[in-house]
């Protein structure tokens, strides 16, 4: 049985029941670890068009706090927050293990994070939660944990670290700051409400404080639920429709996850690349519309390729304009990021950031089974040539192995730490 790559999600039942977790599940189909927790699959949605788009909302009969009450399943063969349709808000946190960390302390931390993540994602307070009321709005909260190289060193399991788990090589476009790079542990906390994200991140960091110290924190945003029509691809802070050419996790799970049944602790796991990419919006302002569209190779109005009419039309990279040049520029971002090699693709799950005037950009997050095989060749091509480089600058970079999901009775990373 092929497990569904996308974490089962639950929308609340119709009647608003204060604080009452609803069990009317909206499954994306497929296998689930939820067991008895799901009452019925009332609807199925998903597919290429839906992923990366604001989640569909249904009829007028929905509860006014519907978005707040929706939950994502924590337990399953894969961690949530990867195949999960991106929520509106994200906090990505890297932490460094304290000196003296070892496998035993990592196991304790993972037990704590497992417990906290499971409770919080269900809309329940963590143990010893000092603000339990803030946990009452799950808003599709997901907590995703990643391991930097430091985890394997601390656990004395250097041989278990995947070959691709090392800092990316430096690129010509990079202007990396230490303050935005590296980290032993990653926490990706996403939800459709920023209060939820803030509380969950605080609980997780607070309970980790004897184990690890925060290294960097990046907050990101996309569209809020209910603000754009269902199926709308989000726009990044440069105004571009961003995500059209993304892969569909349900259709090509092998590009993201190590096969569930495969050998080794990474079965059901993946890798995360987190790059903080600054956008020079002031200089982007100087570019006219045609120049902006040429930079990407897509129209600003609807994200359609310059060679097509609709957003999801396949770009025609061969098409020539009246003067013999490619309609899609030789250095356009979509030409340079596309490859013929079907393996050189990955899941992009970026968020916008805006930390004040002159400090805007993308928290670029990608998930792939193998960073070296899938991500690096594309990043190299973009480093060599990409019109977008004129306005975008990577200022942070970190990579993590993302352990598989947590089955019943298990804790995060158990296959690595005990295997």
């Amino acid at each position: 049985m092929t497990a569904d790559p996308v974490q089962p999600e639950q929308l609340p039942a119709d009647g608003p029941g204060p604080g009452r977790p609803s069990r009317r599940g909206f499954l994306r189909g497929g296998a689930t670890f939820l067991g008895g927790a799901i009452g019925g699959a009332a609807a199925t949605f998903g597919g290429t068009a839906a992923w990366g788009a604001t989640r569909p909302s249904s009829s007028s009969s929905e509860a006014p706090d519907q978005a707040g009450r929706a939950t994502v399943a924590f337990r399953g063969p894969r961690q949530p927050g990867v195949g999960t349709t991106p929520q509106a808000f994200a906090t990505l946190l890297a932490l460094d293990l304290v000196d003296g960390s070892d496998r035993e302390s990592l196991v304790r931390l993972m037990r704590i994070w497992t417990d906290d993540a499971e409770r919080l994602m269900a809309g329940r307070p963590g143990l010893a939660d000092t603000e339990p009321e803030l946990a009452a709005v799950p808003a599709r909260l997901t907590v995703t944990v990643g391991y930097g190289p430091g985890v394997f060193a601390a656990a004395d399991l250097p041989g278990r670290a995947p070959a691709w788990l090392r800092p990316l090589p430096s690129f010509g476009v990079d202007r990396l700051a230490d303050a935005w790079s590296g980290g032993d542990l990653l926490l990706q906390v996403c939800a459709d409400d920023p209060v939820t994200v803030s509380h969950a991140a605080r609980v997780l960091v607070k309970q980790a404080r004897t184990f690890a110290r925060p290294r960097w924190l990046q907050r990101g945003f996309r569209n809020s639920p209910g603000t754009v029509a269902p199926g709308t691809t989000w726009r990044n802070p440069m105004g571009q429709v961003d995500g059209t050419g993304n892969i569909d996790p349900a259709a090509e799970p092998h590009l993201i996850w190590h096969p569930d049944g495969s050998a080794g602790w990474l079965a059901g796991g993946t890798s995360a690349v987190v790059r903080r990419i600054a956008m020079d919006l002031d200089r982007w302002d100087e570019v006219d519309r045609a120049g902006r569209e040429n930079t990407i190779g897509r129209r600003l109005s609807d994200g359609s390729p310059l060679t097509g009419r609709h957003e999801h039309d396949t770009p025609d990279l061969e098409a020539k304009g009246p003067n013999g040049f490619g309609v899609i520029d030789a250095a356009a971002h979509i030409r340079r990021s596309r490859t013929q090699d079907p393996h050189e693709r990955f899941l992009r799950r970026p968020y916008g950031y805006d930390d004040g005037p002159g400090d805007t950009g993308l928290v670029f997050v990608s998930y792939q089974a193998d960073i070296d095989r899938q991500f690096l060749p594309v990043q190299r091509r973009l480093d060599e040539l990409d019109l977008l480089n004129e306005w975008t600058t990577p200022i942070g970079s970190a990579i993590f192995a993302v352990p598989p999901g947590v089955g019943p009775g298990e804790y995060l990373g158990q296959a690595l730490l005990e295997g």
Partner: protein
Amino acid sequence: MNRSTISPARTLAATAVLGLTLLPAACTAGSEAAPEDGAAPATDAAALTVEDPWAKAVDDGMTAVFGTLTNTSGHDVRLVSAESAAAGSTELHEFVDEGGSPVMQEAGDGLLVPAETSFTLEPGGPHVMLLGVTDPLEPGEEVTVAVTAEDGSELEITAPVRSFDGANESYGQDGDAQDGSMDSMDHSDQDAGDGSDHGEDM
């Protein structure tokens, strides 16, 4: 019709099982819920479930175990004592008003969990007090306490240990009855939790 909704009782029982085991074999059936046909649970302990137990991490000295006890039976259950291998001594504590400020002390009559009622052990409220802890209770570990009911039956609570800055309540005068190591906790105001008091107070 309401098949899709899990009743609070079932949720509670399911959660409780994670943190709870009962010592006497006779209690096993009672650990999840009250017997269906109204028959009284075999023992007091069997009438109780524990939800979300946890303990405050501490290097040494004093700490406490918290959680929600639910009496699923139709009769009151009185807890009279507690025991833990992790502590020199273990007591059932409650808060009393002493000159306008709340202080904790050993609960003279034990802790009463009324019939069909939930009873919360929490910072600032009743708790199971661990005194004379010598081996650190580290976050992510578990600590086990056995709470004895009036009829002698025991409820074993396995509590995950968590970092916690609160629960620095002061120890009442009655605390003097404890051994000498407790004196440092015998402060009467609430500005505990900083300086030398850190980690030693409940």
